[in-house]
């Protein structure tokens, strides 16, 4: 037998092992860089955001208690209370989910189980297209169309609005924006439900519809909740489009859907580039609150999900 081993050069072997180590290091470095950014972001925002409450802050510390519990946000009088903004943000996001969640779950069910094949393909494309529309375009749409709806709806209900800029407009806008996210995750979750479960239910004499609503949806709930969390994150974090229709009220909280509101992101964005000193730095404090709100609601949903999961099984 003619061995090839004499052709293998020692130097090449050493070299390739050297490259192997080098690339392993490089890959690790890339992973490290990717992971470190979130820490950089958090450190930076927290450092900036904590600043205004420390005694060393130039011009004196802003009382943190007043910041966390205040119900007014007025840069002209240097009053910064974030409590009502948090409430507004949560209300507008929940409002959006209230509209969007059932629609997206039912649409996902329609696409995966009920629609004929051709229709389902078209619907999938529609959902993907909605997901791909840039948020600026939604903002333009909201400022041009949604505010009109709200305005005429308010007129019918006997309210006057600020040109349609309102809590309801924000919620409708966000509902449209989170719809594709939640729907596509629900589709994935429903598709992952094992066939046997469905067949098992049908074999027991359940109708297809019963099976869809009882077996499929409950089995897919973990994925559907994942979509809900993602949707909520997007609803909390959306800035450009929301600030086009929020109206930025100085006091709150806003419960009347036709009244103007102020969300955490619209607060951060409003005149951010025009400002300085405390008024600028305190927006980073708002950034911390935004991250905290996203985190806490995520945990809350996980908790609720576990509870539902347990009571169902």
């Amino acid at each position: 037998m003619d061995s090839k081993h004499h052709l293998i050069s020692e130097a090449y072997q050493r070299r390739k092992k050297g490259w192997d180590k080098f690339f392993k290091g490089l890959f690790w470095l890339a992973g490290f860089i990717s992971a470190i950014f979130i820490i950089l972001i958090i450190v930076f925002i927290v450092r900036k955001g904590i600043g205004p409450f420390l005694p060393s802050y130039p011009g004196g510390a802003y009382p943190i208690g007043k910041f966390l519990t205040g119900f007014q946000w007025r840069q002209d009088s240097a009053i910064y209370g974030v409590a009502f903004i948090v409430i507004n943000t949560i209300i507008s996001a929940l409002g959006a989910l209230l509209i969007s969640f059932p629609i997206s779950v039912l649409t996902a069910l329609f696409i995966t189980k009920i629609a004929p094949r051709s229709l389902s393909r078209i619907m999938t494309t529609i959902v993907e297209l909605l997901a791909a529309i840039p948020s600026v375009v939604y903002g333009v749409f909201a400022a041009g169309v949604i505010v009109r709806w709200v305005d005429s709806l308010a007129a019918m209900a006997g309210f006057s609005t600020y040109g349609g800029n309102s809590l309801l407009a924000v919620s409708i806008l966000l509902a449209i924006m989170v719809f594709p996210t939640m729907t596509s995750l629900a589709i994935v979750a429903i598709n992952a439900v094992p066939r046997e479960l469905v067949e098992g239910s049908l074999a027991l004499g359940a109708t297809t519809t019963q099976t869809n609503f009882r077996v499929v949806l409950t089995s897919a709930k973990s994925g559907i909740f994942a979509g809900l969390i993602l949707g909520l994150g997007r609803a909390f974090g959306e800035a450009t489009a929301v600030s086009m229709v929020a109206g930025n009220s100085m006091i709150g909280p806003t419960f009347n859907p036709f009244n103007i509101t102020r969300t955490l992101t619209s607060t951060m964005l409003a005149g951010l580039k025009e400002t300085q000193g405390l008024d600028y730095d305190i927006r980073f404090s708002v950034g911390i609150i935004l991250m905290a709100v996203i985190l806490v609601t995520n945990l809350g949903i996980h908790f609720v999900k576990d509870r539902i999961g347990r009571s169902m099984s």
Partner: protein
Amino acid sequence: MKRKLSTLLVVLLVTALMLVACSTDTPAAEAPAETPDPVEEPAEGLSGEIHVYTRDATSGTREAFEGGIGFDKDEETLTASAVETSGNGDMASKVGNDVNGIGYVSLTTDFAANNLKPLNFEGVEPTIENVLSDDYSLKRPFSYVTRAAGDFESDEAEALTRAFIAFITESEEGLSAVDGAGGIVDLSSAKPWSEVAETVDGFDPATDYSGITLRTRGSTSVDKTLKAALEAFQAEVAFEFNMDHTGSGDGFKRVLGEEKDGANAGDIGFASRKFGDNETVSDGMLSGEYCQDAVVVVVESSNPLSEITQQQIHDIIVGQLTTWEEL
């Protein structure tokens, strides 16, 4: 339990549909104490709650407006139900879309395009003539300040900055461009640019300035007049410009203040007011005013109101006058 879940879904859906489908159901409004009761017929325009629109705290228009109506910043506060807008255009489009709105914009604003109606102030119509004759008192200057001498990116940029300032303050071409864009200027002492250009220190029309970018910063109200002037200057000297305008507060800050070396630094800063005491414009190479503008109180165009007094608008701003009936 499963049945409950699907029932829940159905209920949620129906609620959602009702919200989306523009139904006539009265929503369960829990209006907070601050919000006055809804009125019966808001469409009339003369009745109902007044919606006050204001600009952000760094706006020069706001400062000029508040000063002009006798609003004492230290003693009084703006009504808490005011809506804050982010720029002159934002203000114009928001008030134009709200039949109950009242706000204030620059005289350069296109009132018709924004569905706005300008109001006479103290019986005087906001016109260029009335501003020049000092009859109209709600007015403010458009001010400029440049970077400190020697602090420009290049000598050419410095010379070009000098030339541009001379162009908009002295030359016929520059002043008529500002005038054409709605700025209020006195054209009587203007000289042709060809004459003015010779007096500018360090500026040589034979030099190629096409690689130089003039960066202008500051007030959004100066946008329109400044853009016209920059373009007219481009017709005289080939160069580039970059207008990134965000508010009067940034005018000083980005050429001489804390952001002068930041990401948004500029060569010339503008304010739609006089620079303040803490804005030390004397540090700059050049500073001054290039035109006048009037602040105009505006309402939506279908509003029957056409006159307003200083006292009335003051009371509206501080929240003592809250409905159209009281006017």
